[in-house]
């Protein structure tokens, strides 16, 4: 591709990779940080018709800069509606949200996520903020994209607390639990690459590595076995234009770094 940048940071790369997953004329449920920037970048490039919905009630905003919070006034700047959480969440449950973004402190092979505690729930070693809207996104959006840091402590055999549902314990488990049919984790983006979930087993599968990353790096930084297919793609690095847009969206570098 023309004008590929030679210098970029991992967060810039992840934002661009996430952005490309979002299709035009679809809807996305967006959380704080990289998800916002990825969605705003998609709107400014290949997906001008992407509908952005925030949990606190902002719908279809056209904010010149990145909001700090999913409830801040930037989330309903030039929006089509400044609504409510009941509205956003009900619409998601009813099937109006194609994509949802999630972050994670821990993830397992089925895409189950922990953002609640490390250790024991009664006496936690570390207390994280909890579900927030994550469980709702993971339960109710049709496809979820998870952006997180990857190492052995984060890619775990078993999450300390199952905050947000992935494929639970395998194929059909979501539907058996009563979660919406056909919904679930779609992609995982880390500093090493991009993962999907195997059709049959619903286990995490490597799809692409970032430039300069090896399959060994991927394996070494996971406590569970990741399915490695014969064909592994290499992600496209950001273009100069994408980097320029990222700086325009996040001029202070609050999400993308300096």
């Amino acid at each position, binding site marked *: 591709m023309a004008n590929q940048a030679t210098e970029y940071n991992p967060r810039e790369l992840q934002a661009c990779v996430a952005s490309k997953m979002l299709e035009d004329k679809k809807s996305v449920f967006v959380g704080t940080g990289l998800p916002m920037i990825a969605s705003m970048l998609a709107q400014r490039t290949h997906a001008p018709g992407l509908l952005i919905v925030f*949990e606190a009630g902002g719908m279809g905003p056209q904010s010149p800069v990145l909001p700090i919070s999913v409830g801040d006034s930037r989330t309903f700047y030039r929006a089509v509606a400044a609504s*409510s959480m009941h509205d956003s969440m009900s619409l998601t449950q009813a099937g109006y949200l194609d994509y949802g973004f999630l972050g994670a402190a821990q993830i397992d092979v089925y895409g189950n996520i922990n953002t609640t505690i490390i250790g024991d729930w009664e006496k936690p070693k570390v207390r994280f903020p909890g579900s927030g809207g994550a469980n*709702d996104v993971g339960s109710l959006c049709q496809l979820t994209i998870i952006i997180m840091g990857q190492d052995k402590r984060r890619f775990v055999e078993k999450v300390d607390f199952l905050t947000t549902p992935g494929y*639970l314990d395998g194929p059909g*488990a*979501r539907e058996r639990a*009563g979660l919406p049919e056909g919904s679930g984790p779609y992609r995982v983006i880390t500093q090493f690459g991009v993962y999907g979930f195997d059709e049959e087993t619903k286990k995490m599968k490597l799809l692409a590595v970032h430039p300069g990353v090896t399959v060994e790096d991927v394996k070494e930084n996971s406590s569970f076995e990741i399915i490695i297919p014969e064909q592994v793609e290499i992600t496209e690095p950001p273009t100069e234009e994408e980097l320029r847009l990222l700086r325009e969206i996040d001029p202070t570098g609050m999400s993308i770094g300096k």
Partner: protein
Amino acid sequence: MEILLEGEGELLGWHDPDENRKWVLENKSRDLYDKRMTVKEAVEKFVHDGDYIACGGFGHIRIPMALIYEIIRQGKRDLAMAGKTAVHDIDILIGAGCVTRVEVAYAFGHELRGLSPAGRRAVETGQCQVVAEISNAGYQWRFLAGMMGVPFIPSRNMLGTDTLKKSACKVVKDPWSGKPLCLIPAAYPDVAMFHVPRCDIYGNAQIDGILVEDFELARAARRVIITTEEIVDNEVIRARPYRTAIPFFVVDAVCEVPYGAHPTQMPYLYFFDEEHIGEWLGLSRTPEGTEEYFDKYVFGVTCFEEYLKLVGGVRKFSYLNRVELFQEPMKAPWLEKK
């Protein structure tokens, strides 16, 4: 209905619908009367030790901070609080020892600004107890059920997770589809507090921008305290009744507090005071620093007007207004560390 699973979390603020209805019939006036009082009087009258409280707004947005500081000043104790994406309010109240029990959808974090030292320290040392987990939609639907006067709302979130196991929800078999369904219990907070841009003396409150869950929470709570940027004439409300988010008959107190949401954001009026939030996040890293913060900003002042001068007065608020209106870029200490 067949019960498939019962959450182990504590059921906070639930009442039998008839019991709550009776309470409403006996205690909520339909009279259009002047409810103005000071923040001090409102907290004295309506916030009691042991109460289950909730704030309107979201995270660092439209939080009734003047009331939060007053709760600390009056030394309220053993409060339970709705962690319905409660960020700055709950962190400060936990840090001050007022809130000791939390039902958590989101708490102990400050979104992009990082995790909250005071709240986490309290939970990790056992000073503050997490009594139940839930999700944001879950919490909001607890208030919806409360507002509707029904014991629960059915939903399709949280199923299959530990969030549900540690919540006060139950899973049943839906009598229609036969599929598992989550039942989210109603919540009726003892007192809910809101900051709004305009309200009349009777409590008709208008909100500019997103409502978050204020619509439902105000109608579910037993007592409602409104702080407002300005008190407007009843005619102003009646000229645009479609903007009223909270009607007078659910409101118990109205306090005029300009800049009452500082250091949180008031949409269209003033931006987050990142400098002040940064000062709290820095000081609250230690118990001593936490004390220092309260000595300076809560016990060191006698009223909210003094506090406003202390945090930067007119100059600060004109800057925050310009940032909110995109006329000046934001500055934040936490950004320097990124």
